[in-house]
């Protein structure tokens, strides 16, 4: 086997759901329209119910793809999905395998293919337990890259063969393990090989949060800061729906949840000399973020650059 990093990590969901686990936190932290989470759970229920259907009959690969801009919660939703599915009916058990996609690459000739096959051997072994097994392959475009876009001058055959190994192993596992449900996530659907895209049964976009979700995220971030600052002034401003608060909710359209939370990190930086965090701190932070040259598109992380500029 490989001496490198583990190819995957495992978790079992059984018995009483642990609402304080990291998986519960992942699921609950993602503020999104309820319909999206319900749709995702419905996809899983459908695939679970179709477990006895021969894959050839419906062309099933038992794969769900989550796509959308970065920072909107695809990975967190995928990590929390087995928890939420188990929580909906604690009598059922589930396993969760989080594939370490970065561990599947090798500088050795044929190394990537070998690691891919080892991964799927591991999936088959864990699936042999018979309980529903959720397999998360994050950033699936790195494993199922569009072969048409692979440069023939930079290690071409290995890259192509790894995609081929991925496809063949995926098919083999699907055929022999109807209890496996794959969850793929990607920021760049176009970078995924068409053969991989066609093996997905359900695709679901995880969009940036809407106004109501953004406000909830802002309140959530504020609660987080309460451990280090007196945030009451901002809470009161939010409750009273003061002009600055409403402006912040409106002007963050298109911003991801992660970027929105980062605004509060910058606000905390601005208020470092103070015991309390005020609405002005948050508003200034947001102004600086949105005033960067890159604008909202690159908001997540750009605030540091804009902060330095001041």
């Amino acid at each position, binding site marked *: 086997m490989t001496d490198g990093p583990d190819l995957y990590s495992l978790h079992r969901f059984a018995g009483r759901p642990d609402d304080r686990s990291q998986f519960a936190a992942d699921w609950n932290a993602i503020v999104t329209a309820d319909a999206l989470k319900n749709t995702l759970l419905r996809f899983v229920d459908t695939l679970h119910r179709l477990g006895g259907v021969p894959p050839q009959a419906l062309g099933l690969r038992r794969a769900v793809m989550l796509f959308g801009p970065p920072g909107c919660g695809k990975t967190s939703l995928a990590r929390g999905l087995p928890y939420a599915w188990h929580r909906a009916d604690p009598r059922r058990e589930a396993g969760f395998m989080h594939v370490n996609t970065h561990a599947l690459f090798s500088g050795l000739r044929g190394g990537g293919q070998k690691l891919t096959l080892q991964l799927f051997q591991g999936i088959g*072994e864990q699936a042999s337990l018979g309980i529903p097994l959720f397999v998360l392959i994050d950033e699936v475009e790195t494993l199922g890259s569009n072969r048409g876009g692979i440069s023939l001058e930079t290690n071409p055959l290995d890259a192509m063969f790894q995609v081929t190994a991925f496809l063949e192993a995926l098919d083999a596992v699907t055929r022999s393990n109807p209890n496996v449900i794959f969850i793929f996530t990607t920021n760049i659907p176009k970078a995924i090989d068409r053969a991989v895209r066609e093996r997905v049964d359900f695709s679901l976009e995880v969009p940036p949060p809407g106004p109501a979700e953004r406000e909830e995220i802002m309140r959530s971030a504020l609660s987080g800061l309460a451990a280090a600052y007196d945030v009451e002034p901002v809470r009161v401003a939010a409750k009273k729906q003061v002009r600055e608060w409403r402006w912040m909710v409106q002007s963050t359209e298109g911003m991801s949840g992660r970027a929105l939370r980062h605004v509060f990190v910058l606000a905390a930086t601005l208020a470092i000399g103070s015991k309390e965090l005020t609405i002005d701190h948050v508003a200034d932070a947001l102004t600086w973020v949105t005033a960067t040259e890159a604008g909202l598109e690159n908001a997540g992380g750009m605030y540091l650059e804009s902060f330095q500029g001041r």
Partner: protein
Amino acid sequence: MKAERSITAVRHSAGRTIDELTKFATAVLTARRYPHAEQVGAQLRSLTPLFNLVLATRAAGAPALLVGTRDMQIGLHLDYDMNAEENLSVPPMDLLEELPADAQVEVTVQVTQEVAPALAELVRKADGKPALITLTVTPAEQPEQSDVPESDVPPEAEPSDTPEDRPRPEDSIPQQKTPDEEMTQPLR
């Protein structure tokens, strides 16, 4: 969970191979947090003469070692192909529950031909504690048997049984304590 692993016997000395077999079984049970994992390892080590014979006569079953519980079957194959790839990794066990001290655990040594009663006696005595190892004789027509070269075991160490005396597969865990059958019984 079902999993298969392999070790290439021709790449190692017999002692090293036996050591790896033992370590593998112990590691699998340790990964399940089985309290008697080390005891099983010690009992397997006490079977070194048996393993030596099995290795020399290429009489390993397929798999040669089977670690089994109600929810797990992990087999370790002895491979005689120099180019075969070894894999002695213990599968992650996080989806399985811990094995309590009173769990039914069976570590089976599978051989394709009868071994001398004296060696079977080793299995029975092990280290004096309740043994957890089963010795099973499987049919001789295993793939490994097809290209078995000349044995380098001295004639006096060869099993005395003729092929006609070998038990049929379904008789491999006999109920009566005839000398031939006794060696295939779980140790108590």
